[in-house]
């Protein structure tokens, strides 16, 4: 969806005021540490995947998304996921009080489960069932589409032409995965000239964007 998260090409946000690397803390407040733990422990119940959770954050009003800090957006997303998955009710979220005991099949996740799960990771590359539609070299165009669901095709690339610069193999397709349909498609690194994306005043540089095959059409 064309939400507040898709910032490419937006003006007015000011310079990136990065904290110096040697003093940047992992967490800026204790609640951020808890937020990360809550997200991981809740995700361990397997009620949603990474693309469902990204879409839950992106569905906020763009003004809220941009005003929130990083972990505030995680909190909003997690609240949406907990209620929509039925793990908690909207009233429980509002009051902070449980209305019923948890389902007996729900198992609490602890630090030991977390460490094992994080080590295992979540690979998203899948053996291909069909050969890639494109090889390195040809010019392709990103489809002009404006889906209301999750997508990883940045707005600034849609309708633009680039060249296939690399093949990454088959990866789970986030657009359908965000609505719980697991498909895999070939993933490409596509090179766009800065002029193609930003106009004739742009420098001679290039932007490389990873794009899945359904986003692309040959010319």
């Amino acid at each position, binding site marked *: 969806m064309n939400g507040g998260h898709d910032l490419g090409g937006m003006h007015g946000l000011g310079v990136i005021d990065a904290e110096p690397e040697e003093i940047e803390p992992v967490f800026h407040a204790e609640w951020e540490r808890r937020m990360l733990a809550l997200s991981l422990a809740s995700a361990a119940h397997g009620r949603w995947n990474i693309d469902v959770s990204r879409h839950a954050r992106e569905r906020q009003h763009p003004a809220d998304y941009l005003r929130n800090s990083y972990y505030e957006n995680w909190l909003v997303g997690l609240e949406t996921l907990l209620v929509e998955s039925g793990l908690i009710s909207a009233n429980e979220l509002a009051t902070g009080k449980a209305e019923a005991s948890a389902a007996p099949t729900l198992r609490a996740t602890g630090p030991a489960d977390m460490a094992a799960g994080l080590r295992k990771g979540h690979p998203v590359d899948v053996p291909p069932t069909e050969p890639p539609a494109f090889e390195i070299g040809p010019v392709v165009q990103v489809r002009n589409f404006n889906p209301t669901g999750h997508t990883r*095709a940045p707005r600034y690339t849609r309708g633009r032409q680039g060249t296939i610069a690399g093949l990454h193999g088959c990866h789970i397709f986030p657009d359908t995965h965000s609505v719980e349909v697991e498909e895999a498609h070939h*993933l490409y690194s596509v090179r766009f000239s800065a002029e193609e994306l930003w106009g004739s005043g742009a420098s001679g540089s290039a*932007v490389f*964007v*990873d794009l899945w095959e359904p986003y692309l059409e040959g010319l």
Partner: protein
Amino acid sequence: MRTWKYGFGTQTSEVRYLVLPEKPDGAENMPEDALTNLVTRNSMIGVEKASAPGTGGAL
């Protein structure tokens, strides 16, 4: 004078990229642990060069 071609990479997929920083002048004979100190987070995402020997570098 060297000319450079450069590009910006996004991480729209789960594929992650690291930049291999160029070895700075004067670092030719440094051992691995000393070289490690010259590599910074920012040099591995391509927004600055690795620290020069003797300038402190990473923590």
